[in-house]
């Protein structure tokens, strides 16, 4: 049975189709890009928020905002930076909203609940790492993750985190020193 349709409905449907047409890429391109980036982005979100359920939600929101951003991208690297910048901002907003609810000392423990088929040594190593990461500031976690897990350059990290490239080197140095000390491999204030 046909539904009774008014001109307003037709206008609204047209507007809705226009909204989808405004996505920055078509379905095929999006799906390929998503398959390349989603797992890495989820890991980044999980590490900087310390909460896997929040990472799940932010992942979807990030890709949606990315699609609606309406920006022109120069290539894969530009696209990826944009995606991570959106994710970083969303995580920052979520942290500000939930700051009173999540004590910093337990941030990250939640990630350990993801089922693992690995051995005890690997689990212990990850637990040590999570504990160490939970003592860092969110920006330090993001900076280190982008630099050493994603292999991003200084200019890319500065772009994603909205920092000045000139100050990034010193900030990264301090964050790395701090994490190395927390991992028990170097004195935090030792001579380099």
């Amino acid at each position, binding site marked *: 049975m046909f539904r009774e349709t008014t001109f307003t409905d037709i206008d609204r449907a047209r507007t809705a189709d226009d909204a989808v047409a405004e996505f920055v890429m078509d379905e095929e391109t999006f799906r390929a890009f998503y398959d390349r980036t989603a797992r890495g982005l989820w*890991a980044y979100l999980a590490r900087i928020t310390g909460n896997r359920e929040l990472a799940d939600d932010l992942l979807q929101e990030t890709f949606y905002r990315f699609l609606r951003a309406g920006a022109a991208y120069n290539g894969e690297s530009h696209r990826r930076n944009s995606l991570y910048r959106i994710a970083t901002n969303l995580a920052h907003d979520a942290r500000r909203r939930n700051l009173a609810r999540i004590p910093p000392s337990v941030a990250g423990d939640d990630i350990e609940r993801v089922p693992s088929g690995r051995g005890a040594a690997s689990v212990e190593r990850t637990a040590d790492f999570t504990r160490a990461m939970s003592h860092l500031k969110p920006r330090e976690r993001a900076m280190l993750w982008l630099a050493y897990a994603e292999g991003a350059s200084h200019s890319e990290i500065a772009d994603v985190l909205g920092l000045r490239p000139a100050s990034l080197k010193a900030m990264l140095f301090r964050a790395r*020193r701090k994490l190395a000390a927390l991992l028990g491999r170097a004195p935090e204030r030792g001579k380099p």
Partner: protein
Amino acid sequence: MKPLDCDLEAEVLALVLQSGWPDRADAGLREHVAACAICSDVAAVAGALDHAREELRERVTVPDSGSVWWRAQLRARREAARNAGRPITAVQVIALACAMGLLGACFGATSAWFQSALAGVRSSLASMKIHTLLPSATSLIAGHGVLILAMAALLLLLPAAVYLAMLRE
């Protein structure tokens, strides 16, 4: 001034990210890392982060790309339809306000009772003197200060609360 980086740092990082540290590193580089605080930090931190990343990537199940695309489409359509409906609602509200105003004006112009009441209010306002009002206003504020303050706060806060609720929505 303390150095913030080392020339061999990138080489160490590349080996760690390719899972080649320390096995694929030559003896010279291993010796350097043992002596250089920057490179040893890079090796330790990058090794831990890379391991954590691989662990998470292996264990995580992200939603299927097709379902994410479908949900994004659905949401974009819903938002567009809502946005398209918003101006219509605004026009309806303005039209209602105009109609109410017009009705009020017609009633005021035609009703004899309303005209006489209006004349009475006008004359009482003209005969009213400010200096006679002040003592009664002061006694009212003194007697019901808390109530007046609460009403004033309500008048100020209510629009702000409505605005914030609409903003969140």
